[in-house]
Structures are given as C-alpha cells and as structure tokens.
C-alpha cells in the first residue's frame, strides 16, 4: 500500500481552518497543522496580562483545534520576518494597519517553504471566496497562490469548486467532488459542516485574530512610528502597545500607565528599560516613560501619574522616580487637574 499524501494545514484556531483540515483528513491524507506567530496575534497575550482576564479559562485555540483533530501542530515564530510584511506591504493596508493580503501571501509562502523542507505534498487553508474584504476575494485568492510561490499546491477545500483545480485535485490525491463551494460572508455552510463532523465548540474571535485589525492598537502603532526616527519595532514594542493607558503629553515622550494590578505586574518587567514612576504616599499605578526626558518632563509625567492614583485629590503626592536600572529618587508633586489633561494626549 502506498504512503498517504501529506498536507500542511494553516491552523488559525478558528472554525474554517479546522473544517478545511478535517475535509482533507477525511480523504485519507496525512494532515499536520502549522500556525505562524507574528507578534500581533490576539491569541493569548492580553488574556495573560489584565487582572480581569486572569481568571478566565485560557487556551491556545490553534493547539486546541489540533487536539480536536488529532493532528500535530507546528507553531513557528515569524516575528522578525513579519516586519517586512507590516512595514512594506505591496498591497497596502486594510481599514487599519492590517496588511491582510500580504500577510496571507507571506504565511502561504512560509508554509510552502516548510513543505519543501519536510517532504509534504501540498498546503491547505480555510479560506472562503468572498469572506474577507481584502485577502479572500475571487480576484485576490490567485494573487496569494501566485505571490507565495505555492501556485497550484495551495488547496482551499471549503471553496475549491469556485476555483480552478489544483495539483492535488488533478493528480487525484484528493477527490474534487468531495470538496466544497462555500462563498460569501454567511457562516451557515460552515455551521452545517461543523455539525456534520460533530464539532460543538470553536473559537469565534471578535474583530479577527490580529491586533492590526484593531483601530485602537493601530493608532498606537502609528503614533509610535511617528515619534521615532524609524518605523522599526521589536517584540517589546508590540507587547507594550497592548498594555496600559498611553498618554503622549509631549512629542518626545509618552507614558504607559497600568490600568490594573495585572498590567502593573507586567510593566514591572520593563523597569530596567524605562524610567518608571510609582506613587508612594498613596496607592497608584506603575507608570513607564517611553522617550528621552529632562527634569521638567519628569515632573509633568509625575503630575499625570499622580492624577491616576488614589491621591488625585490630595494637595501633594510623593512618587519614586527610577531611571532604567538605576536607584529611585523621591519627588513630590501636585496632581494634574483633570481639565489640564489634554484629550489629545490620549493615544
């Protein structure tokens, strides 16, 4: 008996990729999953930071899907390589800073590299024609196949009947008749297929699986780039944009103010990299200063920090100011009046 053909399925953790993988597994193909971590994936991160989210059950949906399907999952760190996708998207951005079409092409390209290295035969995605405004349109789906280099090794089982036959179909590795013709934004066919497979639970991430589709997050990212010499970033930058209240009272520095104990704990880990402020006469949040600051800037930052603590109505609040990796010094300030906090400072 010949070895079964082998496919790698892009697993996001949502229903469509789960169904696509299952459809191909049902045809006797050996399927393994692959999941790319760009740094902007919604999966996990903020749930682990905010206090209010720490009690919620946590699971990585891609791992969970792999377990439901009984397949292996390869999680690949693409943070560095993804920078070029985000900084120079050939097809531009979506509504926010989401380079969806370039992103999909990038992930399929990485999957194509992976199958060549690991001796797999083809790639599966859960894409559905017409489901997404940028990356899943009839005219853009061939772009992903072409620009990724995967060409006709890229099979979309949920909408294959709307697309030209791929190599796995032409070669008979999979039966095209047993693939689907889903299209558009309706979820009903997916729900029906899930029912057929006995899937009762799946993730439905509101707003998608990527922080770059989120307006508030994208605004913070653009603000960061506008106030730096270059549009580069590292993982800490990405993480810090997800945490705290961000205020930019002056162009050359901004404050990151913890909103709860969980965020305060998380920001503690960054005190060696940033000047930090902590009220000592009253309770209050940990505040990081991002930027080069002088004594006047620190005083303004301290007055803002005091405003967000329990001493906001006190005449004076004492704080500790700690330079990166340095010794704290004490500073007493009058908390800034709410009317003096310019709404435009909020990033």
């Amino acid at each position: 008996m010949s070895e079964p053909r082998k496919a790698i399925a892009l697993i996001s953790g949502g229903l469509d990729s789960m169904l696509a993988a299952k459809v191909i597994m049902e045809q006797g193909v050996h399927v393994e999953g692959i999941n790319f971590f760009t740094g902007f994936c919604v999966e996990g991160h903020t749930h682990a930071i905010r206090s209010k989210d720490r009690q919620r059950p946590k699971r990585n949906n891609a791992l969970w899907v792999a377990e439901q399907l009984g397949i292996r999952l390869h999680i690949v760190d693409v943070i560095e390589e993804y920078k070029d996708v985000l900084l120079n998207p050939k097809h531009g951005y979506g509504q926010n800073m989401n380079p969806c079409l370039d992103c999909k092409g990038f992930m399929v390209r990485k999957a194509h590299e992976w199958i060549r290295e690991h001796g797999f035969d083809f790639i599966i995605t859960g894409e559905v024609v017409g489901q997404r405004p940028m990356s899943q349109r009839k005219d853009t789906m061939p772009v992903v196949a072409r620009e990724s280099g995967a060409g006709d090794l890229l099979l979309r089982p949920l909408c294959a009947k709307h697309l030209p036959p791929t190599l796995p179909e032409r070669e008979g590795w999979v039966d095209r008749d047993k693939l689907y013709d889903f299209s558009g934004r309706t979820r009903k066919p997916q729900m029906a297929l899930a029912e057929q497979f006995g899937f009762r639970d799946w993730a439905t991430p509101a707003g998608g699986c990527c922080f770059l589709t989120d307006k508030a997050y994208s605004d913070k990212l653009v603000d960061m780039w506008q106030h730096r010499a270059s549009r580069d970033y590292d993982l800490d930058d990405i993480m810090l944009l997800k945490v705290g209240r961000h205020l930019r009272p002056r162009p050359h520095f901004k404050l990151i103010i913890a909103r709860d104990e969980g965020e305060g704990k998380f920001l503690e880990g960054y005190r060696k990299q940033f000047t930090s402020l902590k009220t000592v006469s009253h309770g209050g949040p940990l505040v990081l200063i991002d930027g080069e600051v002088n004594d006047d800037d620190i005083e303004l930052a301290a007055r803002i920090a005091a405003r967000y603590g329990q001493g906001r109505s006190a005449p004076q609040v004492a704080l500790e100011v700690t330079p990166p990796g340095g010794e704290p010094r004490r500073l007493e300030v009058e908390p800034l009046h709410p009317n003096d906090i310019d709404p435009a400072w909020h990033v």
Partner: protein
Amino acid sequence: MSETRELDARRLLCPLPVIRTQDAVEQMQPGQRLRLIATDPGVKNDIPAWCRINGHSVESIEEQGDEILITITVGET
C-alpha cells in the same frame, strides 16, 4: 537518570513559551527531561496540550509565587 534541561520563559506570553519549548525539544532525545519556568498562566493549559498532540509527557506542574514550573519528558516522535 539523564540530566534535566532548563528553559527560562519568564515574562514571555503564550504562545512564545510553547514555541521555545518546541524549539528546545527538537534538539533533545526521547526520554530526556525539560524543565520550563514561565510566568504566563496560559502555559498551564498550553504546554500540556502541546505535549499531548506531540507525544510528550508532562511530569509535573508546580506554582511558586508568580512562577510556573513544568517538567516534561520528551516522547518518541
């Protein structure tokens, strides 16, 4: 008993501790043990799930203050 390798994933948020574990295990032999130290509570679910689908065993999960220590034995995969 073979030496237990340590992996420091403190301050990393999931899925990074899983990725670091995956990368470390790739360099190890079946039967060897890996001790992961992490601070993201998500590892309590994610590492056992990753081990189950990849054929490795979780020997113990301990919490010490804010740190989570997970010991796994590399399986025959």
